[in-house]
């Protein structure tokens, strides 16, 4: 058994999980929910206490002219009852999901 090489795969998986995962961990309250899920990408499903991170409710929005965005960055756009709204991925990537209301519709953009 080559003990020098063995740790490499778990370390890579761990790094991937950090990169892909919970930037929201610093935000708000945390709680756990018991569920059958994968603890990290590619892992088998197991029953575990899954951490849940609170994300924003009714986030702030600004007019297009006041938005400090690069032309080529990606947004998720939606039109509700004639009201256009853009969710920059740079923010969604930090929290994965937010709870918003546009017009009379309560909605949850996800990333």
């Amino acid at each position: 058994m080559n003990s020098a090489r063995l740790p490499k795969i778990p370390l890579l998986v761990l790094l991937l999980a950090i990169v892909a995962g919970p930037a929201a961990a610093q935000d708000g309250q945390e709680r756990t929910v018991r569920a059958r899920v994968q603890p990290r990408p590619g892992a088998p499903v197991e029953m575990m206490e899954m951490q849940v991170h609170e994300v924003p409710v009714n986030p702030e929005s600004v007019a297009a002219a006041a938005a400090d965005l690069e032309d080529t960055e990606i947004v998720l756009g939606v039109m509700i009852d004639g009201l256009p709204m853009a969710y920059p991925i740079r923010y969604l990537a930090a929290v994965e999901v937010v709870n918003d209301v546009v017009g009379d519709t309560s909605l949850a953009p996800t990333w």
Partner: protein
Amino acid sequence: MYARRQGGQELTFDFASGLVDNNLLIVDRETESVWSQLAGQSIGGPMEGTPLESIPTMQTTWKFWRGKHPDTRVMVLEREGRRYVYQDFEPGTRRSSEGDHDVSTVGLGLALGNDSRFFPLRELEGAKAPLSLDVDGQSVTIHFDAEGLTAWATDASGELLMTVLAYESGWLTFFPDSQVWTR
């Protein structure tokens, strides 16, 4: 994107540190049910099996969206994650700089009834757009805009249809019978 109203109840979602089929999970505060982002339904807890109502969206560049909708509002959060800026986007190639992830297999996923399709951006880029086709008995138009780095679908009356820009492998995990479109 999903409607938060579900059977007379308004749900508030949080982000969960777990995955199913390698896809993001969310948990609602009201019932503590677990929901799959891409499947759009609860996969655990009191609401298991319940579908969420999808809201059609466009994933595109800020310039393209602002050009189409000058009166748009824009969400702002204090915290930022990684920026996804596709300055040198070319379908079929791998990006190498900021926002580095493999876009070679990104495409537009569309599911109507039991008919699901996947349109790789690299194929749409070389096609004569827009495409008109029949999906589950409906006339559907597939649009592609290289500068907006996006594709979207409309119905016969020009209304936006629910689609998602996704990795081919991710889409096919949830819609394994999907037809993958080629030129």
